[in-house]
Every structure is written in structure tokens, then in C-alpha cells.
């Protein structure tokens, strides 16, 4: 069960207990049956929808990975075994995409979680204007990624706003780069924009976690004279245990699926320095019409994320 991407709480002992024995009283059995029927009835709507709109198309797509299907073609579809995978693993662009995504995730996951937590802590307590700050922090999230990418495209120009700000605040010491056009700075530029856009989203999740920590715990800590740092270390941090794993996993999945920013801002360039797995899949599947190859990329991506989630689950597992 370690393959589920999100942390789940340990079952209470009852959950793994065997079904009631035949010798159990009659009314208990009736209740058991009723519980099964109502339970499945409640699970069914969501389960059926997920089956129809996620599982079926996913399986369909994965099947295509072993054929030579094309988006536009009068030629019949043939089974070609693992040809697409052989081609994929021999493609340097694919490995470059993998490297880029790793780079992106390794920076984004810790930095974005930390900033989001900092933001959540800053606005967790009630103070004058708290609503204003919450809303402002959330603004980037509600702005569509397509719009955001366009805005930053302007700002990252060599004579754009970012460089102007850098130069002003460093009193002319820093001459900004041509951010998106230099293989060395393009990915960092995309990273900065992505963190800026998504941190508010995870702030909300942190905030939900913070709100579920009882105020009494803080009061007790304050009575004991705990400093703000100690309060954080011994009350807040342990209280966020589940939220932590949740944020970690969602940021990781989001980071590995990097696409929109790249598609609008750099199209994977310069020199493949910002291309990603999903970008390559979309480029092959839509623009180059190689449906089967794109499906192969998707399948590899899926397995990869599954593996990473399993490792993360293992590392953050409940130690009790």
C-alpha cells in the first residue's frame, strides 16, 4: 500500500479486524450488511466518475504507447511492441527533460513549501488587515498561469521590469541577465515565477493545518514562557505533521508536471534548458502528431511519479 501518493493516517485496529464471525448476533450482521451497502453506495458516484474519466482514458492512452498510432493518418494502427520506448530512451532531449524537471523539483519543493509556510504563519493570527493580506497573498494563485506567464515574459526582458528593479535596488551594481534567453538563467527564471505563482496555493493548505491546531496548546506554551521559536518548534511543527506530508507530495507532483510556463515562455529552449517531460509529450502528441510516442512519454512519466511518491511515502512514513 506504500504506492498511494498521499500520506494516509494509520487505520484504527478495527479496520483490519476480520469480518464479524458467523456466530455474531443477528442484528449485528444486518447492520454490517447495511453498512456495506450504504458505504459502497456513497463511494460509488465518485468511484464511477474517476473510473470513467481518469482510468479508462489513461489505460487507453497507455495502450497506444505500444502502437504506431498517429493523430492524423490514413494508415492503419499497428502494434509495435516497445519501439517507442527504445526511441525515447535513446533521445538525448528526453534525458535533458528529466534532468530539468529534477532541477526544478529539487529547488521548488523546499523553497516553495518554506515560503508558503512563512506566509501562512504571517497571516495565521487575527490582526487588523488580515483579510487584506490573505487576499493579496492568494492573488497570484487566482490569476491564470497563461496570463501570469505572459506578464512575466514582459518583465523578464533584458530591458524589462525585473532588471530595472534589480538595478535600482542594488544602486546600479547588478546588471540583470537576459533571463529567458540564456541557458544558464532560463530555468531559474521559470522557477522564480512558478514559486511566486503557486506559493499562495500551498499557503492555504498550511493555513488549514495551522487552523486545526488547538489554540489551547499555544496558551499553555505561552504560560510556560515559551519563545515564539519554541512555540513553533514544539507546538506548531508537530501539529503540522500530516499537512507537511500533504504539502510535500502535492508540490512534488505539481513540480514534476511542469508545463504551462514552459509552453508560453520558452517552448523548452534555449538549447533544451527548460524542456520538461510533459512539454515533450504535448509537443510530440499535438504539434508533431506522434500520438503513440507521446503516450509512451506519459507512461514513463506515470511510472516515475509513482516511484518517487513511493519513496517519499517510505521516507515520511509513520514511525509508530
Amino acid at each position, binding site marked *: 500500500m506504500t504506492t498511494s501518493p498521499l500520506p494516509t493516517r494509520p487505520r484504527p485496529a478495527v479496520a483490519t479486524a476480520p469480518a464479524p464471525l458467523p456466530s455474531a448476533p443477528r442484528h449485528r450482521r444486518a447492520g454490517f450488511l447495511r453498512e456495506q451497502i450504504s458505504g459502497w453506495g456513497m463511494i460509488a458516484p465518485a468511484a464511477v466518475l474517476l473510473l470513467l474519466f481518469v482510468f479508462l482514458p489513461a489505460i487507453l492512452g497507455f495502450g497506444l504507447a505500444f502502437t504506431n498510432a498517429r*493523430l492524423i493518418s490514413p494508415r492503419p494502427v499497428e502494434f509495435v511492441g516497445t519501439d517507442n520506448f527504445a526511441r525515447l530512451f535513446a533521445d538525448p532531449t528526453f534525458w535533458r527533460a528529466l534532468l530539468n524537471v529534477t532541477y526544478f523539483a529539487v529547488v521548488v519543493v523546499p523553497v516553495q513549501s518554506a515560503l508558503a509556510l512563512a506566509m501562512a504563519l504571517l497571516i495565521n493570527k487575527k490582526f487588523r488587515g488580515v483579510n487584506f493580506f490573505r487576499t493579496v497573498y492568494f492573488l497570484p494563485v487566482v490569476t491564470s498561469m497563461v496570463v501570469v506567464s505572459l506578464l512575466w515574459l514582459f518583465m523578464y*526582458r533584458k530591458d524589462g521590469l525585473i532588471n530595472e528593479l534589480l538595478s535600482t535596488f542594488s544602486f546600479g551594481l547588478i546588471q540583470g541577465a537576459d533571463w529567458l534567453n540564456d541557458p544558464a538563467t532560463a530555468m531559474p527564471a521559470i522557477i522564480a515565477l512558478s514559486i511566486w505563482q503557486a506559493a499562495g496555493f500551498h499557503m492555504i493548505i498550511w493555513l488549514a493545518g495551522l487552523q486545526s491546531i488547538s489554540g489551547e496548546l499555544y496558551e499553555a506554551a505561552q504560560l510556560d514562557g515559551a519563545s515564539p521559536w519554541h512555540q513553533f518548534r514544539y507546538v506548531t511543527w508537530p501539529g503540522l505533521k500530516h499537512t507537511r506530508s500533504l504539502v510535500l507530495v502535492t508540490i512534488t507532483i505539481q513540480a514534476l508536471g511542469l508545463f504551462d510556463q514552459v509552453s508560453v515562455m520558452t517552448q523548452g529552449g534555449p538549447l533544451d534548458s527548460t524542456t520538461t517531460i510533459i512539454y515533450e509529450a504535448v509537443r510530440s502528441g499535438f504539434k508533431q502528431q506522434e500520438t503513440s510516442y507521446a503516450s509512451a512519454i506519459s507512461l514513463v512519466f506515470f511510472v516515475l511519479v509513482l516511484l518517487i511518491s513511493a519513496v517519499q511515502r517510505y521516507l515520511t512514513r509513520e514511525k509508530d
Partner: protein
Amino acid sequence: MNKRFTRILATSITAAALVSSLGACGKGSASATSEGSNEITMWTHNAGNVEELAAIQGVVDAYNQSSDAKAKIKVQAFPQDSYNDSVVSAAAAGKLPCIVDIDGPNVPNWAWAKYLTPLKLSTDLSANLPSTVAKWEGETYAVGHYDVALAMLARASDLKAAGVRAATIEQPWTEDEFQDALTKLKALGKWEYPLDMGTAGSGEWLPYGYSPLLQSFGADLINRDGFQTADGVLNGDKAVEWAKWFRGLADQGFMATKSGKDSTQDFLNNKSGVLYTGSWAADKARASLGEDLVVMPTVDLGNGPKIGGASWQWGVTEGCANTDAAMDYLSYSLKPENMAAVAKATGTIPATEEAAALIPEFAEGGANRIFMDFSRKYAVMRPETPAYPFIATEYGKAVQDVLAGADPQGALDKAVKAIDANIKSNGGYKN
């Protein structure tokens, strides 16, 4: 709380019912199933382009009201940037309309995939600009109302200040002259980069804008003899020479390896001296610069100036239930006054002389007449092969890589390898 929840639930169910009934009312007349024999649907790429859409709608309305209309045409407009994705999805689901708008170079691909059926029009197309008639394997599959042309824009005052002669159609700039002009313009110190080649562009702009330069060097996107390989053509000496020259423009500080998001705006804001762009930018530039604007042909890099031919065109789909009416409408729309109306609204080059005569800017002596001459004289079609969409993506990537500093030979070899593999895996794109 309980009551509130029940209320929310009730509201949501009502809302769901409401939306699905709205959906029923609005269920697409665009889908093939609801097309009666007396109404056919036509998809266009110009949602958001108010003038162009109005012009097309005008032609359609006139046809629908004419007494011998064979069917009622219904226009469904899509935004251009995502038009191809919409069409391809619809095709995958088998829901194409009768008449479609297509970007010219994609016609062979769609014809090969049997999306399109050969045109049988009552109009004589022999007098149309050749680049507005899309042929593949001897059949005509699409026809356009207009074309566009590449050109270079500059300010006469700047050229004069730098002591540079304006290029003309009789005497375009040669490679050396171009080099000289850029050196002198840069020396004026007015701009960081005197030249804007629109290098921030993406998608179809890359092959449209830069493959003519490649062709002027004597290379090409693919060996047009049989369209089976790009080897020796896209990665030959002449192609490498082109790549080095193009990259050299950036190395010498003449142009940015990535220009601004909107090159026309930058030019009008005096951030560049010479703008390499299409005829579509001319009206806006003229409105802003007036008499100071010079429109010049592109550079002769050895084999004369070249520009890309073919813009948006119309085709009829294979699955159309009323092909007769679709053909009839297209023939009607090709009347000079209709073509003129569309070309006028779009600021593009009308496909025939008769239509041009109806638009002052394009009639003899008109300010935009020069674009028609460019088109007649310099237009090269992008390779007429079903492999084109693939070639376009690979060439576009090679251009971006070369600009970013990749080894020219390596980048072009990579593109050739991918293109040849794609052609092979498609059985040579033969029928």
C-alpha cells in the same frame, strides 16, 4: 446547519439541471449530427479579429440571401492560436464541419489524412496568385482569398542619417550591403540592436519567417524531389552557411537572439531601426510613421529574395454531407468583390488582379501594391508534403537552437535525422 445543507444540495441539483438544459439548447450546431441537408457549417480561424470575421460573415450573409443558394452557411469562429488544436481534436472525434479554414502549408497533410476532398469549383483559378491555390498530387484541395508577404520596414530618416540606400524591388540589398547597412545603422547609436527579426516568435512563424532566408542561400527544408529526405539539403553546406550567417547577426550585435514580445510595437517605439516582418504590420506602421515609412524587399542572400507563400485557405471536408453546396459557396466567395472585401478587412494581398483593382491600396500605384509584387516575384511555397507539420516543428527548433548558440551543423543534422525518421515511419507519406 442541516437545513442549510439540504438547501445547498437542492440548489446544486437545480443548478445542474439548469445547466444541462442550457447545454441542450446550446448543443452545438457545429457538430455534424445536427447538420441538416440545408445547413452546412463553416469553421474559421478568426474569432477575435473583428474586421476579418465581419467580412467573412458579410460574404456568407450575401450568399445565404441569394436566391440560388444551395444551403444555408453557418459560421463558427475559433481563435487563431489554438485553431489547429481544435480542428485536430474534432477530426479525431470525427466531427469536422463541411468547410474548414486551413493554413496553406498544412493542406497536403490534411489531404493525405483524407480530411479534405478535392475542390470542384465553377471558378477559374488560373489567374489567382499561385500561392493562394493549394495543390497536392495534382489535385486542388484548398483556395485562399488572400496571401501575405514578408518585408522589411524602416524609417527613411534613419536610413538617410546612416547614409544607407533604401532597398527596392529592382535592386534589393545583397548580403554585403545588408551587412554594411546594419554596421552603419548600429553606429548611429540609436538602438541597442538596429535589426529586429522577430526572433521571439514561435510556432509557424519560425518556418514561415526564416525558411525563405535559408532558401535564398540555396538550401531548403527538404529535398523536393520525391520529398523523401532532408539529408544534404537542410544540413548541407549552404544550410550551414545560412545558420552561421543568421547566428552572426546576433553575434555582431545587430539583433537580439530573442526580440521583444511584440516586434511591431518595439519598432514603432523606436527600439529597432529595421524590422523584418509581414505585410500585416504595414498599415499600423504607416498610420504611425506616415511618409517616413519605407517598405523594402527582403535580402538577396545569393539566390534572390525569397518569401513564404500561402496563408489561410478554404477546403471542403471528406465527410461533408452536402459537398455540392460547399463547393457552390466557395465558388461564390471567390468573386472579386468578395475577395476584395476580405482582403481589405485583413490588410492582406488580394488573390487576383480584379480584386486588387477594387482596393485603392492594392490597385496600381497604391501604397500596398508593393506587397503584391513581392508575392508574385519572390514567393516560395513551403514544401507541399504531408510531412510538413513535422518538418515545421523540427526546423523551428533548429532555428531556436542555432540562435541560442548551438553548433549549426549539429542542430541541422539533428533536425534532418528526426525528419527522415518521421518520413520513414510514415511509409514515405505515400497513399
